[in-house]
């Protein structure tokens, strides 16, 4: 591993051996439905509580990832995971089922790339040979914890986003044929004073721009190096803001395709109830381990940078009038020629 600034260059080429995704019905109606491993037809995920539903998504995605990597759960040496619920309880219960040593992390919706970056670091530095990284979110657990009861009749503004019901897990290891986890840039906490929890895109855009800028500064690469750069869940409000910030910072993002997982995961016309787009831990996780991994393995794209964005607020912090601190972590996945 080589450290430059805030970027890790993984020199021993740890690979993403396999990834798996399990999603809810609304994601199953989205344009990426063909890229998921399992789609539930009910939001309850056949469970009695929303929390159990979220946990089940993560349990199943992690088990599927192990099967797809042709491993057994005893061969997983570490689990790195997190979610949006208090005390990251979904990850803990899923890790209990797998039984491997567990590192719980919290990066809100950036957890997908935070856990993947740490998993690659463990493998790259020789601390482990096979690490499972994963996260999950459920629309209704997020509504219940951060907003109102799910059936409460409140009118959402057009800047609001829709939490993805789904889980994505990946296994990082040595050998194999999957894409190489080439490098990762760990983000700083950015807060430019946005206080509206229904405008997360605007709150998170500076964090995404800062991490992308740092990534190219540290690596000496230009956006042209990547076939695709995606942010985690900036959606239709945050992505144009990030674009403007990067343009002002003179990062030539026009050299590549620059999109957002929150815009990819839903059909923005037919699924208008998602307002400005998808969000949640599951958003970048299901797009990365489902859609992007499939495109990488099919060699439709060869190099992709995923910049997962997270709003690190708590219901208490915004009720007390605090602004929303945000973060973004970037991981580069590359297929070898």
């Amino acid at each position, binding site marked *: 591993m080589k450290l430059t600034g805030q970027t890790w260059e993984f020199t021993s080429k740890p690979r993403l051996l396999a990834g798996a995704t399990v999603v809810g019905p609304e994601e199953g109606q989205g344009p990426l439905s063909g890229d998921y491993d399992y789609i539930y037809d009910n939001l309850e995920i056949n469970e*009695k509580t*929303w929390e159990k539903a979220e946990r089940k998504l993560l349990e199943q995605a992690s088990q599927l990832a192990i099967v797809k990597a042709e491993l057994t759960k005893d061969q997983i040496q570490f689990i790195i995971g997190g979610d949006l619920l208090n005390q990251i309880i979904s990850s803990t219960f899923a890790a209990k089922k797998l039984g491997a040593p567990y590192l719980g992390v919290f990066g809100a919706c950036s957890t997908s790339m935070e856990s993947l970056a740490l998993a690659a670091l463990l493998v790259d530095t020789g601390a482990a040979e096979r690490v499972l990284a994963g996260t999950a979110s459920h629309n209704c657990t997020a509504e219940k914890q951060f907003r109102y009861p799910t*059936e409460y*009749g409140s009118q959402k503004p057009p800047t609001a986003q829709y939490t993805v019901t789904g889980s994505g897990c990946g296994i990082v290891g040595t050998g194999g044929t999957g894409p190489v986890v080439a490098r990762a840039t760990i983000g700083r906490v950015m807060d430019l*004073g946005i206080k509206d929890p229904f405008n997360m895109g605007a709150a998170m855009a500076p964090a995404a721009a800062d991490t992308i800028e740092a990534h190219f500064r540290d690596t000496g690469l230009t956006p042209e190096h990547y076939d695709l750069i995606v942010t985690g869940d900036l959606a239709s409000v945050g992505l144009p803001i990030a674009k403007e910030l990067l343009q*002002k*910072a003179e990062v030539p993002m026009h050299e590549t395709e620059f999109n957002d997982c929150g815009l990819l995961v839903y059909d923005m016309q037919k699924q208008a109830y998602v307002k400005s787009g998808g969000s949640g831990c599951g958003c970048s996780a299901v797009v990365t381990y489902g859609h992007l991994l499939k495109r990488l393995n099919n060699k439709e794209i060869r190099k992709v940078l995923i910049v997962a964005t997270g709003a690190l607020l708590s219901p208490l912090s915004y009720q007390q009038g605090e602004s929303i601190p945000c973060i973004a972590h970037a991981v580069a996945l590359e297929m070898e020629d």
Partner: protein
Amino acid sequence: MPASTKNKGAKFSLDTLSNQDYKSIAQKHEPKRSTLKNCAFAFLIGGGICLLGQAIQQGFMAWFDMSVKEAASPTVAVLIIISVILTSIGVYDKIAQIAGAGTAVPVTGFANSMCSAALEHKSEGYVLGVGANMFKLAGSVIVFGTVAAFFVGLVYAILGLQGVHHP
């Protein structure tokens, strides 16, 4: 860290971007809120709920031989039941997305806030879940309703206005 980025010629940096300058960048990309449309839907749907209430009240008066006052309570009860049923089958929140204040202000909104909280927290049991959370949203309405009533009463007392009491 400088508070402003107004220095001409200085390279743009996120570190020196002030909250105020960022706000103006962010606001450009914020979709417009359709206030006029929202007001129209709130008026129509909210008015529709009131019209339904009036019809129910007239029904009680016509068929059950009740006075206006007598019919008031059963009318409210029927509206609450309708709201609770629509909440339970997952429809009320969908209507509310269009209606906004139109479904929040009438008694049906109050019922929705209690019913939705009760449904949501049933998983934590009847005492710590349903009982403790049912007034999570409705509680403020009751507290501030009572406080407002107290102050109105105070104004009446100070000005010597005798509220007419109907026995």
